[in-house]
């Protein structure tokens, strides 16, 4: 056993995984700083509700679970820095932060990345109207804001979030015009067979699905939103069937919520240079990790959905196991202690992991849509790059995402390609017949999100500027 090393640990992300890991790490006696951009810990699922939402949204597991987690965090020795975002990092893992108190840096430490997931989108004509939101965004708006995205909503995309969002709309008194699912009914029922392994979650998804059907809400499987047109009162939405493109269904709604599953947020892990691989089932890039979240860098761990989408139950277990593994790596506990502390969580993880992985193809059911995106459709909304522009660059010889970005500006905007990367990759692999690994991913650049210029400059005099010596004449 190495001699104990009590140097600091920084956890990025205060969701279920990050908070759980931070608390467990500090119980091992490590000085832990937890950083989260929100004003309260909890992440996406356990996000703290607004006072209005506390009154209007029926009590639920997410509120009570979040409150418990925040209570435990407050009672722990973890230093919590809320309202703080990581906008950059150095090769030695110095973290550049910005918060209400301005810019600051955290010196190199062992970093546990627990920054969760990002929603995936596939473009279609009209998708950039503000009347269309993501499924995850709509869900948070309703659960934590107590506000409907619209009185009548079309819920579209893929994965379990479809049914949970539709359920939330009804719960707040809204109307669901239709549910449009890229997955097939058989896929869902096949999943039902896994019920025994994760009863709570699967039972809930299937019971919502049944409820919605009973409420007479049309559910289109193997279908997708193929266009959205703005009208005076909202949207006119066209639903197309994947296997019968000529079959169309029209719906009017005030808004639509659309999302094609989740993917790990990899901006930080990619910047840190850890190894990643493409998960074919999930259709996304994820850091290469072992069961405890160890990566190709000894000073960086990844836990929760950031290590691959598995949902909240897995996130908590992963957070625990990562913390104990880090404690073992630091020589704070023996391998025997690690084994006994993690025996139960690791057994549960194995079981839940199997179910969660079965869920991935359902979340990724829209994968075939990107390759067929219409030429005029905008793929990169930040830089307004159309599919035609991308196809022509690919034709000129851009065989990977970074050359495509360099030649078209796709992915250069404020979102750093979060919205367009999957579509761009599918276009490249579809045209060049190369693998997602060959197509690669957009190089992550700092800052990770736009920074007010004055937060970098501060107050200064001209004479404060350390002007380098003149360039040669």
């Amino acid at each position, binding site marked *: 056993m190495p001699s104990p090393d009590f140097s600091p640990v920084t956890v990025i992300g205060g969701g279920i995984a990050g908070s759980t890991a931070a608390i467990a790490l500090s119980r091992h006696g490590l000085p832990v700083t937890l950083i989260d951009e929100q004003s309260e810990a909890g992440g996406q699922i356990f996000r703290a509700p607004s006072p209005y939402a506390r009154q209007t949204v029926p009590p639920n597991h997410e509120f009570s679970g979040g409150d418990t987690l925040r209570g435990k965090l407050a009672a722990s020795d973890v230093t919590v820095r809320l309202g703080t975002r990581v906008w*950059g990092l*150095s*090769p030695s893992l110095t973290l*550049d932060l910005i918060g209400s108190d301005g810019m600051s*840096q955290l010196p190199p430490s062992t970093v546990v990345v627990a920054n969760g997931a990002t929603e995936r989108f596939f473009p279609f004509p009209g998708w950039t109207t503000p009347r269309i939101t993501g499924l995850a965004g709509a869900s948070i708006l309703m659960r934590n804001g107590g506000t409907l995205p619209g009185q009548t909503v079309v819920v579209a995309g893929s994965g379990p979030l479809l049914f949970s969002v539709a359920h939330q709309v009804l719960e707040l008194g809204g109307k669901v015009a239709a549910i449009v699912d890229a997955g097939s009914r058989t896929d869902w029922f096949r999943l039902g067979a896994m019920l025994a392994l994760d009863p709570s979650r699967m039972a809930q998804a299937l019971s919502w699905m049944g409820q919605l059907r009973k409420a007479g809400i049309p559910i289109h499987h193997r279908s997708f939103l193929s266009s959205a047109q703005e009208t005076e009162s909202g949207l006119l939405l066209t639903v197309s069937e994947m296997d019968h493109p000529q079959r169309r269904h029209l719906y009017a709604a005030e808004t639509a919520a659309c999302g094609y599953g989740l993917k790990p947020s990899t901006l930080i892990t990619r910047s840190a240079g850890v190894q990643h691989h493409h998960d074919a089932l999930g259709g996304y890039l994820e850091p290469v990790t072992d069961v405890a979240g160890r990566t190709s860098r000894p000073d960086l761990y990844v836990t929760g959905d950031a290590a691959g989408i598995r949902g909240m139950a897995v996130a908590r277990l992963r957070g625990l196991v990562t913390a104990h593994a880090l404690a073992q790596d630091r020589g704070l506990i023996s391998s025997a202690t690690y084994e006994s502390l993690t025996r139960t969580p690791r057994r549960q993880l194995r079981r839940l992991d199997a179910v969660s992985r079965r869920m991935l193809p359902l979340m990724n059911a829209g994968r075939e849509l990107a390759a067929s995106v219409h030429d005029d459709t905008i793929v990169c909304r930040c830089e307004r790059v159309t599919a035609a522009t991308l196809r022509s*660059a690919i034709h*000129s*010889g*851009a*065989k*990977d995402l*970074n*050359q495509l970005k*360099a*030649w*078209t*500006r796709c992915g*250069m*905007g*404020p979102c750093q390609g979060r919205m367009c990367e999957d579509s761009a990759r599918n276009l490249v692999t579809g045209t060049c017949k190369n693998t997602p690994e060959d197509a690669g991913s957009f190089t992550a*650049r*700092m*800052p990770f999100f*736009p*920074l*007010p*210029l*004055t937060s*970098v*400059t*501060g107050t*200064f005099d*001209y004479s*404060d*500027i*350390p*002007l*380098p*010596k*003149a*360039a*040669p*004449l």
Partner: protein
Amino acid sequence: MTVALHEKPAVYDAVIVGAGVMGATTALFLARAGLNVAMIDRQDMFRAASGVNAGTLTLHMTRAQLIPHAIRGREMWLNSAEWLGEDVGALATPGLSMAFTEAEEDLLRQRARVRQEMGAPIEIVSPERAISIEPGINPGLRAAAYCALDGHIPTYRVGGAYARALKQAGVTLIENAAVETIASSGGQGYEIRLANRNQAVHAHRVVLSTGAWLEKMLGWFGHDIPIRCLINQLVVTETLSPVMNSVLSIANGLLSLKQFANGSVLIGGGWQGEGNIRDGGTRVIPENLQGNVRLAQHVVPQLNTAQILRVWLGLESETPDAMPLIGPLTHDDNAFVVGCVHSGFTSGPYMGRLLAERILGADPDLTAFDPYRFSSSPATGSQP
């Protein structure tokens, strides 16, 4: 001149090593003259300096001796449709270089005079005149140097345009294949070995145009020239309403500032980051980010409303005398170099064309760029 007529020659007439603006322009003009040309890059083409530069077409920051070349290069960018086959969107604007202190004003006047002598139409103007040209600048300036010949080019459009032009000219492009050795193959040209490929490439002539990676390759040809690698920083803002319409800089050359058609403002000027040529990895130095951006905000105070969208670093090469390397590396005129050109994106097309002309038998004046100027005994350039 041998003109091979078959598609995939066993031996290329010329192989260009390094697919940036220097190599690609040389390749283009050689191929158009009928040579069978291949161009090799260790990564995708135009991804090093030529893909990440600021696209400033300024004379204010150009080395005085290179002003004539920069003027020609700038003209070529503005007429890219004529020789490259498509308009890449270069824009002619005026350029202002500013002085805020007495020392800077002296420097400004001195540098403007030297550049004027080299043919740059630069004049010193009063603060009032400068403000009438560019209303958004800090009224606290003491003087400005005005040049009617300035402008910028959206760098991102250039790589794809070259790819199409090269394809049309019949250049064979070999990407993601680093050149590992170049050996003379029995007096019959060169054998070029590539990383990750079994097959060597053969050529009668080679052109080295590997930018910041030149030093080692020059050594293969007996030229021991230390190449310094600059790690230049660029900062781009989110789009904002128009705050300037010219290219702005300061007397000592450490700022370049312009707003593109889409509204984003690009802040550069050669502030340094950390990096290396081994893996091309780079890192921002926070103090230099702050210094560069402060300078920009000082020059255009309205930038205080901007959001910084991205910061990046690119590798630029420099010789000990900060003058280019262009010309033959061997006495039998079969190996050549083109690179280390200050403000090399501006003059790149012209420099590449010059070398192509030299290879094709013309005799442009390349004396100041001769690689042998660094050799102790100028007549002994050896061959690998």
